């Protein structure tokens, strides 16, 4: 593998909870996704590209709340969770471009990436698949008694899927250590998307509605839910109210949401933290701009390497089918 560690955000960077580290972490996810959007527009990324711009506080906050070893699993809108788990951004960008150095060696694509050595279990293209697979990761932790808690991220629409309700049946019955994080990015039609935190009520599964645009709120709620599960009390649903600034995917700009792009609303998680940092005198505006420039350079390095990278060898076609 040609990936160099200098391209990696590094896992420690995503575990530190201080304001500056948190700012860097969220800004890194945003710049990465912005660049991915550009790469898609340039035709370097095929198929889909579901960006999570606006939702950075959730991935970073839950990673900060979780213990090392707690498994994460997500949908196709998962690069934030993957990068926050410490995946090498060069490998992620190379996968987006379908290159041999990609995280899935070019065979997965934007929605199928896995990093089990970092406790990240995908990357699932079927809506709500991660709800039941994540319940299985939690089942394994309970089976072994290893004290790990699974964090399964779902979109608001995935909470409507039958297998989410089926998963709740089992999670409740066996008091499985799992936190279901519903990233409610609030489609404009408002249809059936309220009170997702209450979806577990019939199963006596506690739910909480959280400001998903506030890193501290996410981290605090995540810590409570993870502690609850680790103490053997079973599952929790955290509904994170958030905003996705872009369409459902870059192939489908989401005009149904009432406009392709809207101005970032006031509580942008990164702008909010940035203001707090400056106000508290932890860093100057100029220093934060330098941080941004460093991050942009790292992302550009990953993007340029991906653009230049070689496609998989033809012999790769028929490998990795069976072990």
């Amino acid at each position, binding site marked *: 593998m040609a990936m160099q560690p200098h391209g990696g955000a590094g896992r420690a960077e995503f575990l530190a909870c201080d304001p500056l580290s948190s700012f860097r972490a969220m800004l890194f996810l945003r710049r990465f996704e912005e660049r991915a959007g550009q790469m898609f527009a340039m035709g370097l990324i095929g198929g889909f590209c579901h960006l999570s711009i606006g939702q950075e506080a959730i991935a970073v906050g839950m990673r900060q709340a979780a213990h090392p070893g707690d*498994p994460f*699993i997500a949908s196709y809108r998962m690069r934030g969770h993957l990068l926050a788990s410490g995946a090498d951004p060069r490998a992620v960008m190379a996968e987006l471009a379908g290159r041999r150095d*990609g*995280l*899935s*060696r*070019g*065979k*997965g*694509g934007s929605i*199928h*990436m*896995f*990093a*089990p050595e970092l406790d990240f*279990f*995908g*990357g*699932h*293209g*079927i809506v709500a*698949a991660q*709800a*039941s*697979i*994540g*319940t*299985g*990761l*939690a*089942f*394994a*932790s309970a*089976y072994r008694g290893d004290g790990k808690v*699974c964090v399964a991220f779902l979109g608001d629409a995935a909470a409507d899927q*039958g*297998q989410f309700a*089926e*998963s709740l*049946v*089992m999670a409740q*019955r066996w008091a499985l250590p799992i936190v279901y994080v519903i990233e409610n990015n609030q489609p404009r039609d408002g249809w059936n998307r309220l009170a997702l935190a209450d979806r577990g009520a019939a199963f006596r599964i506690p739910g909480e509605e959280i400001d998903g645009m506030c890193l501290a709120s996410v981290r605090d709620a995540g810590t409570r839910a993870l502690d609850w599960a680790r103490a053997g009390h079973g599952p929790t649903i955290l509904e994170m109210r958030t905003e996705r600034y872009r369409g459902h995917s870059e192939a489908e700009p989401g005009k149904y949401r009432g406009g392709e792009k809207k101005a970032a609303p006031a509580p942008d998680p990164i702008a909010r933290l940035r203001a707090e940092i400056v106000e508290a005198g932890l860093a100057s505006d100029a220093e934060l701009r330098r941080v941004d420039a460093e991050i942009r350079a790292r992302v550009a390095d990953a993007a340029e390497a991906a653009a230049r990278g070689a496609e998989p060898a033809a012999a790769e076609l028929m*490998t*990795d*089918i*069976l*072990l």
Partner: protein
Amino acid sequence: MITHVLMPALSPQMKSGTLVRWLVEEGEAIEAGDILADVETDKATMEVEAAVSGVLLRILVSEGENVAVGAPIAAIEPTPERPAQVRAPEPARRQPEPAPVARLTVREALRQALAEEMRRDDSVFLLGEEIGAYQGTFRITQGLLEEFGPKRVVDAPIVEHAFAGLSVGAAFAGLRPVIEFMSFNFVLQALDHIVNSAAKTLYMSGGALNCPIVFRGPNGASARVGAQHAQDFSAWFAHVPGLKVVAPYTAADAKGLLKAAIRDPNPVVFLEHERLYGESFDPPADPEALVEIGVAAIARSGEDATLVSFSRGVALALQAAEQLAGQGVAVEVIDLRTLRPLDMACVIESVARTGRCVVVEEGWPQGGIGAEISARLMEEAFDLLRAPVRRVAGRDVPAPYAANLEALARPQVGDVVAALESVLYL
């Protein structure tokens, strides 16, 4: 007039059952509707009620004894004021069953495989509907809850979609789930995870994440259950890269292949057959032996025609071969045992000698296993063929309920004989 209480039939295909325990004693006065005894089959347990009031004169079958359906199990004297000498019942039940001389049923073979692999590897667990306290709908898991406890023999709610997904997550985390579907007809609810999650992840992850799961249960024809409980899904799973698909016939293969499937690092679909569970076969020579997945077996040797089948189809094939042996025709029967990867080398080696091939399956003909083998023979062994390949399959129709229509919809020995005669130009 003495009335006999007869062994009831608990299901249409039931031939015999076990008398579990008597709830009354000889000489006891009973009322019509009183529960006399518990009886059970591999599928169900039922209470036997008294049809008339009177005195229970004689218990004819002891507890634990296996009794043919319709055989008398007790005698009742409906006029209690005149207790008479008990008349011995008709002697049908008195014929002692031949002692099973070290024969092994498919059910017991599967149970042994599960238990042995669970003893060997703590990461193996069973999950399915009614597999624990109820002992399994077909009694495959009988006794396993008692030995391994509820942590490793997990009664699942009826949520096939999500428990298939749960098994994928558990396998991702390094466990070895063995998932029982009460019937493979319910697998359609779970097909998404078997195909999209279990079969594809190794490829989609570039080899980073494998998914060792066994999805097992009865597949194919069952008697008088109609269209939604009797479908054969063999060809559906055999279509999917990333899966291994196994469909054994004999007890020894069932055991050795299930043990191999549990140890396999890939997802394995293990197709059993309800109507083979009670069939007895010679036990494996080495009870601990694994049977390699992907290798067919010659079930009967012959030089005149090749008959290819799997699962219960092998029974039809062997009967047809026996019939033709009476006409001096030597038919070779190949038991595929595994449907993916398909052991075409074995089939072609046989066809190289016989020049003729018939494929037998219970499933629908279009896009079936027979269609695949026929196409592969045409592509890879055309010059060896001396007659067109023939398929014998289930009829192209949802399974009907009426007994006569059901028989018409399923391949029969006569169909296999006719197909053999056609390829032999007899």
